[in-house]
């Protein structure tokens, strides 16, 4: 039991709290609490009416139980009853309970608001304050609706007590934060501003907070507060510290009010009026001067309060960014703190200097402290202080000191705390790119990053180095040479293997002339790492190998042997097996010319904001990242490497479809082709590389999805212009208008499919509220399941985002799903609907068979309804190779030597659906003289025969 029990002690409550404290275990505590809850419940439900004291005691016990972390689901009504008690103590407990435990139970809110209204009208200042505190603590919309117009009246009324004014001001502030739309501005605003002149400093303090909040929302309405705030500030900073009596805190005059006034002034630019402006400058100089005076007390509170005002003054100086002398002075005074014995001050000085570094006036002054900051990085014991030092080095970096800063960060990285390594890696990568005078230094730096902190080098970083090497041909040879050398390290990081694999695959030829890095040596070096790597890296290496076959015909046989080995062709991982099989096949059947086309060098990446910078911004929050891209860049002329930006920006946003040779049914150069549903995803380096700049998909916006489902299909005409072009191919541009381009890349395996949809913003303006969904018509619903992953709601100008659709064919189908797209462009809502090219033939697996087998099955499928035949006129020139490609693209195997007439085409395949498999034979007979075709389809299902015949006959 405590010695002190002031006021109205509740003995029962104290006993209960003691009991809880004496509980030896969590279980005992819960048991005691349950006992108490049962007791209180029975009291509340009992026939005997409880007196106010008991009610108060039980409500207080419930509150205690809640604050211990237990749920409370009753007692609200009793608490509300206490509100209308005329005993202060009961009312007070009632309000406390409501403040802590209110939930938007509509019945209760009405009762609570009634009680509050009575207290506000009571003219009893203590009751009024209780009511106002409650509104400020709860701050709900219902309360704003009920009182937002009443409180300003109380605030400015002449006869309101000072303490009530203070509560009313902050109550209004809270309502304005939670429901700004409900707080009416009106004739009271001018009178609120004049509270800055009030004699009572407590009233001024509360009013300053309110005015700051209101001024942030509508600065023009509160412009008159500037001169009043300056006058008030001036009086405080020039006062002797005893003048303000109890508002002096450890010999510092009204530190809270000073900070708030300085904060209010940060809502505005420097005053235009010259006299006012010089008065403010005087104030700021006085604050800077006072900070230099010997301390009036050794207490830390004195120094903290004084420096709180100093830091706020410096914030205002930085905000104005117009007085070079003040900025430089601020920087020098902060410089003294960099070596202060108080850790807190060192921390804040580093933090504050970060913002000073972004002003062109003080950037140079900040730079003079570089050695101290580097020293802080090495000697500070507190990781949060070291973090600030890293931030400051990043902010003060420019062309003149980039090499030193990057070197220091790299050396710090070797011992840096795990918690901040990733961020340092990002920062080094950005600085190295931004201030690279020669790109060999850049490449060296990134490889060093991987060597020192490979685990913390995220995909964005190594993607970026590849983007840059691909876009800059002056560094490609050096990059190839450097990765080749780095790969010789006995334990090199897997990220290095990835970068090495990619770069040698693209540019290995540039160093192949040297016998020490001959093609075979390069290949052996890469392959020596293969077995130590994870599946995605191995997949990347396999792609590098097929690129080697193109670059270096002399190692083709060696690589084919590797691809052919059981460990590849029979690899348990479907993805690796698939690549091995297809790359091997590609290397065997394709001519040199085709190989050269399919495997040609990657085209330059479209240059946009560095994905690393985007990641860092995301990590730090936009407000927390000192912007190294601001105006001072012009001062220092650091725009050197934007040349590639300009050249690549001219081309339209590059869609996946543009990068791939889409007229080939199976582009092998840069995409894994047929992937099983389980292993597909973001783990494919090559696929991802093409989409580097799209941010990761955010959580779906429920609201948007609901709306798009409701409105899109009904109101928009479905475009199917390009639909039939996709019958025999899987990739290409599906839709294009002036704003948007939609590209597709799809993969099918048995009855499963995956489609990558790429949305390219062709404009320079953001698309907002972007959403896209897939709808199936009624007939299609049970036949085909399409699952659309969520897509990022914002597409930046010139950017592209990807959406993944997973599909499952349940049974054979005729209709096609519709892709519904909605977004806002410059305020206008755009609705687009496109027929999605998912057709039955996509679920074909080709079947090879002998002539004998073919005719045997052909006869078996002889029933009249099983055969569908169509004779039609040719729409295109009748070219044998084109026709063959189309039939292959349709999905069946082309069977040679089956038809006695060599001019005819015969194919076979199996349609895979979840329910069943449908065997399918087809025969196409061209008549070149008549420019006609006859197409015959035989399958075990009439609907399948009909659909396939309809689809294919449109293609010739």
């Amino acid at each position: 039991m405590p010695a002190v029990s002031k006021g109205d002690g509740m003995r029962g409550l104290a006993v209960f709290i003691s009991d809880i404290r004496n509980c030896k275990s969590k279980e005992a505590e819960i048991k005691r609490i349950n006992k108490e809850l049962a007791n209180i419940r029975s009291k509340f439900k009992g026939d005997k009416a409880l007196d106010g004291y008991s009610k108060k005691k039980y409500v207080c016990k419930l509150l205690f139980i809640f604050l211990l972390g237990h749920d409370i689901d009753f007692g609200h009504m009793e608490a509300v009853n206490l509100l209308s008690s005329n005993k202060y103590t009961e009312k007070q407990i009632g309000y406390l309970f409501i403040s802590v435990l209110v939930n938007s139970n509509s019945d209760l809110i009405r009762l609570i608001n009634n009680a509050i209204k009575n207290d506000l009208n009571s003219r009893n200042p203590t009751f009024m304050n209780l009511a106002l505190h409650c509104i400020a603590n709860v701050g709900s919309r219902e309360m704003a609706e009920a009182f937002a117009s009443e409180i300003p009246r109380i605030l400015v009324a002449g006869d309101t007590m000072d303490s009530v004014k203070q509560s009313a001001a902050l109550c209004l502030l809270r309502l304005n934060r939670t429901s700004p739309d409900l707080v009416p501005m009106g004739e009271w605003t001018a009178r609120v501003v004049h509270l800055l002149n009030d004699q009572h400093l407590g009233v001024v303090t509360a009013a300053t907070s309110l005015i700051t909040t209101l001024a942030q929302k509508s600065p023009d309405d509160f412009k008159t507060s500037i001169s009043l705030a300056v006058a008030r500030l001036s009086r405080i900073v020039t006062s002797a510290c005893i003048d303000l009596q109890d508002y002096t805190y450890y010999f510092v005059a009204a530190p809270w009010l000073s900070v708030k006034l300085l904060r209010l002034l940060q809502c505005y630019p420097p005053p235009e009026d010259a006299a006012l402006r010089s008065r403010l400058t005087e104030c700021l100089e006085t604050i800077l001067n006072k900070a230099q005076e010997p301390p009036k007390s050794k207490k830390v509170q004195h120094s903290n309060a004084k420096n709180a005002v100093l830091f706020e003054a410096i914030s205002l100086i930085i905000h104005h960014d117009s007085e070079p002398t003040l900025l430089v002075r601020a920087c020098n005074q902060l410089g003294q703190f960099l070596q202060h014995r108080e850790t807190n001050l060192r921390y804040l000085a580093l933090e504050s200097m970060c913002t000073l570094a972004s002003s062109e006036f003080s950037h140079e002054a900040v730079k003079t402290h570089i050695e101290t900051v580097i020293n802080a990085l090495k000697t500070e014991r507190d990781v949060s202080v070291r973090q600030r030092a890293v931030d400051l080095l990043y902010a003060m970096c420019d062309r003149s000191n980039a090499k030193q800063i990057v070197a220091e960060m790299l050396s710090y990285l070797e011992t840096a705390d795990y918690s901040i390594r990733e961020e340092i890696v990002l920062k080094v990568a950005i600085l190295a790119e931004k201030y690279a005078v020669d790109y060999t230094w850049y490449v060296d730096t990134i490889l060093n990053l991987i060597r020192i902190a490979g685990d913390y080098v995220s995909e964005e970083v190594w993607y970026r180095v590849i983007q840059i090497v691909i876009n800059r041909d002056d560094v490609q040879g050096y990059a190839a040479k450097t990765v080749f050398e780095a790969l010789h390290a006995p334990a090199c990081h897997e990220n290095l293997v990835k970068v090495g694999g990619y770069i040698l695959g693209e540019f290995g030829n540039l160093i192949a002339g040297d016998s020490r890095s001959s093609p075979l040596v390069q290949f052996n070096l890469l392959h020596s790492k293969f077995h130590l790597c994870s599946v995605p890296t191995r997949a990347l290496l396999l792609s590098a190998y097929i690129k080697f076959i193109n670059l270096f015909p002399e190692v083709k046989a060696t690589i084919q042997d590797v691809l052919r080995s059981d460990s590849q062709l029979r690899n348990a991982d479907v993805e690796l097996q698939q690549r091995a099989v297809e790359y091997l096949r590609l290397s065997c059947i394709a001519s040199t010319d085709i190989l050269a086309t399919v495997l040609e060098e990657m085209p330059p990446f479209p240059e946009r904001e560095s994905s690393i910078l985007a990641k860092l911004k995301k990590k730090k929050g936009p407000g927390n990242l000192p912007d190294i891209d601001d105006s001072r860049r012009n001062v220092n002329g650091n725009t050197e490497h934007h040349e590639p930006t300009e050249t690549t920006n001219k081309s339209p946003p590059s869609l996946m479809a543009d990068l791939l040779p889409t007229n080939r049914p199976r582009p092998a150069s840069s995409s894994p082709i047929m992937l099983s549903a389980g292993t597909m995803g973001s783990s494919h380096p090559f696929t991802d590389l093409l989409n580097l700049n799209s941010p990761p998909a955010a959580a779906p916006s429920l609201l948007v999805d609901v709306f798009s489902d409701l409105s899109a299909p009904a109101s928009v005409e479905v475009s199917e212009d390009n639909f039939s072009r996709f019958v025999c191919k899987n990739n290409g541009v599906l839709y294009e208008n002036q704003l948007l381009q939609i590209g597709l890349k799809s993969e099918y395996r048995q009855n499963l499919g995956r489609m990558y949809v790429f949305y390219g913003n062709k404009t320079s303006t953001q698309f907002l509220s972007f959403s896209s969904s897939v709808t199936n018509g009624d007939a299609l619903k049970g036949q085909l399941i399409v699952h659309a992953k969520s897509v990022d709601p914002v597409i930046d100008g010139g950017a592209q985002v990807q959406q993944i659709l997973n599909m499952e064919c349940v049974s054979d189908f005729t209709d096609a799903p519709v892709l519904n797209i909605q977004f806002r462009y410059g305020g206008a809502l755009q609705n687009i609907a496109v027929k999605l090219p998912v057709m039955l033939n996509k679920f074909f697996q080709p079947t090879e068979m002998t002539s004998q087998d073919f005719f045997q099955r052909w006869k078996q499928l002889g029933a009249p309804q099983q055969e569908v035949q169509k004779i039609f006129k040719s729409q295109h020139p009748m070219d044998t190779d084109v026709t063959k490609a189309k039939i292959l693209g349709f999905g069946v195997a082309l069977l040679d030597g089956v038809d006695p007439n060599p001019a005819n085409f015969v194919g076979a395949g199996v349609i895979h659906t979840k329910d069943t498999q449908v065997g399918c034979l087809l025969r196409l007979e061209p008549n070149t003289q008549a420019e006609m075709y006859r197409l015959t389809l035989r399958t075990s299902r009439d609907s399948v025969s009909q659909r396939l015949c309809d689809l294919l006959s449109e293609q010739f």
Partner: protein
Amino acid sequence: SFTTHCEIRTYHRMCGMQFMLLFSRQGKLRLQKWYVPLSDKEKKKITRELVQTVLARKPKMCSFLEWRDLKIVYKRYASLYFCCAIEDQDNELITLEIIHRYVELLDKYFGSVCELDIIFNFEKAYFILDEFLLGGEAQETSKKNVLKAIEQADLLQEVSHVKNCE
């Protein structure tokens, strides 16, 4: 963690102090004051995370840390940690002195305050805080004025208590 993060962000630019927590060296929460609307679940999650983070710090470390996109200002008094969350633009040092002034108020009211006083008179600790801070902003920074308000209220309590016993 994504939803919590978002919810706090929404109020990010709007509020000075977001919440204040008092907890013991053993991690027991003694007082919680929230100036932004959050669900009970989120409050518990934030409390758990923050108590763990602060207790893990060594004595000589600085009183400020970045946490999510907020700034945490904390100070230990005897067995109790006082911990405030403020937004990016807010003043760390003045927040540190808000904590100190609150401690002074408790000290003056209870007469050399200890953790037990706050446990057994938790409602008083809340009342004093409401007189000093409202909506996350300082309402009255004069120690004298705050204590005067509390003492007046106590006087009203004594009166009603006497009546109650009659």
